């Protein structure tokens, strides 16, 4: 697998690719540094989607993001799925391959959503062993993403930053920090997102995700945030993004937009906001000062 052409002082901004954007992307050379696709949408044998992706990857680096490996699951890892993922990587040579700290398969049933893990020593050992197995088979490193959480699970003995730090340290995988997921989880579970970032192994972050979320009213009068990837990134998430960038510099950053899609121009505007923050980050100023 090749790598992102980036450094802490070079902005690298990508967007989720959708087939309906293809014509616009071909018309004008986009100020986009990479595209990300969902692995499971490109596991068919041929046709339009592959033709578009072949064309796209002639010009742009590709990041592949999966939901089907079920890193936290207890079924054996689906060998066919792993084989298809390897095939996809062999064809398109993505610069990044990521999955979620969650489970999505059980008893052979694919749940089409990411289920939360109880963070304890036994699930930590399981996740580490499964990531080892996957990385060995694929012959490349994974990035593991912090999930959006909606419910506080009892019996949890470890916190998420520690869990991810252990996973990264013991498997050699990288981390994908989804700042919207962090914000959504912090609200839903009632913790401080800034404290989470203090505890998080930020040095292991190799990609950042930003997305829109929705606010939903519960029958008991409470509120629940959902990472529905269906709107602009919220102001609160941009502020957290700024904090992260000030702390660790520029990282490849993706605007993730999967539902209620904007126009191509609208998506590019959102990507430009991320680029501006990366370009003006304190980290960049400090680094330039150091080099002066």
């Amino acid at each position, binding site marked *: 697998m090749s790598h992102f052409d980036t450094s802490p002082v070079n902005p690298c901004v990508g967007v989720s690719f959708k087939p309906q954007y293809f014509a616009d992307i071909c018309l004008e050379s986009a100020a986009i540094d990479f595209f990300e696709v969902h692995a499971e949408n490109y596991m068919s*044998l041929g046709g339009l989607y592959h033709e578009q992706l072949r064309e796209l990857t002639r010009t742009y680096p590709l990041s592949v993001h999966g939901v089907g490996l079920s890193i936290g699951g207890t079924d054996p890892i689906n060998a066919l799925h792993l084989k298809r993922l390897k095939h996809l990587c062999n064809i398109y040579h993505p610069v990044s391959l990521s999955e979620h700290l969650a489970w999505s398969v059980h008893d052979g049933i694919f749940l*089409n959503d990411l289920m939360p893990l*109880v963070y304890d020593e036994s699930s930590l050992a399981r996740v580490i062993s499964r990531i080892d197995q996957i990385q060995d088979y694929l012959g490349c490193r994974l990035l593991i993403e912090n999930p959006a959480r909606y419910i506080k699970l009892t019996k949890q003995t470890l916190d998420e930053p520690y869990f991810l730090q252990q996973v990264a340290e013991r498997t050699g995988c990288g981390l994908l920090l989804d700042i919207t997921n962090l914000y959504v989880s912090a609200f839903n579970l009632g913790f401080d997102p800034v404290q989470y970032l203090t505890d998080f192994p930020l040095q292991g972050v190799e990609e950042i995700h930003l997305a829109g979320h929705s606010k939903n009213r519960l029958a008991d009068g409470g509120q629940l945030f959902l990472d529905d990837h269906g709107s602009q990134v919220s102001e609160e998430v941009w502020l957290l993004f700024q904090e992260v960038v000030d702390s660790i510099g520029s990282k490849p950053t993706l605007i993730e937009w999967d539902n209620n899609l904007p126009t191509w121009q609208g998506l590019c505007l959102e990507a430009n906001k991320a680029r501006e923050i990366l370009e003006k980050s304190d980290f960049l100023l400090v680094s330039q000062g150091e080099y002066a």
Partner: protein
Amino acid sequence: MNRLEQTHWVAALFHPEKAPLTMFATEDAERFVVYQNNIIVSLIDSLVDSFPALVQLLGENYFHAVAREFVQENPPNSPVMAEYGTQLPGYLEGFLPLEMLPYLADVARLELARIACFHAADSATLSAEDFTSLSIEALLSASFVLNPSLRLVVSEHPIFKLWHSQIHDSPIPALADWRGEEVICLRRKNVVITKQLQLGGALFLKTLINGQTLEEAWKAASAKDPGFNLTEALGSLVNEQLTVSIIY
């Protein structure tokens, strides 16, 4: 979360009436409903995308209700959502409230064929020269590897007209015209083309799909369709880019 807890969690996702879970506080039960809804709604949405004609024929609300039951009984077994829904035609055949509408299952089969066609492997197809370079005797005893995107759907109902009426807003077939139809789906320049065939043409292709020779396909087609014309059928094999290689 160990395996047993995940088993309970999944059972509760698909069957909310089952025993409440102990993995979270009772007052948080409403938050668990979010997972139930996400899964059921996302799977129903995926079926809505895959079966547009069926959605129109049943009406959106009724389709949603049928899909909800289908999803609960037939959750996906692959993370590739383009492959989800292959059991829906069989499910519809066994769905008693719809037994008076037996054509629905075959319309669903046609929609599945279109999806399979859209995602099938790419392949270079044979040219006219590949055919004319062989003697007629050699051709007749040859069999063919067909275009991987080719799908044939045969029904006792007018599924092409039914499908077409819903997607292209044409009239629903009249009862007097209610007869079986044979349909092929084929991808050309990555666009799925859906066409009605004559009976002979369908039998011809079906025989070739089974790996039998051109002569056997010709005989099978002529036996049921006196109007079948081999020269025209060969022309279609070339012009419609239906063949990938000749085995002789």
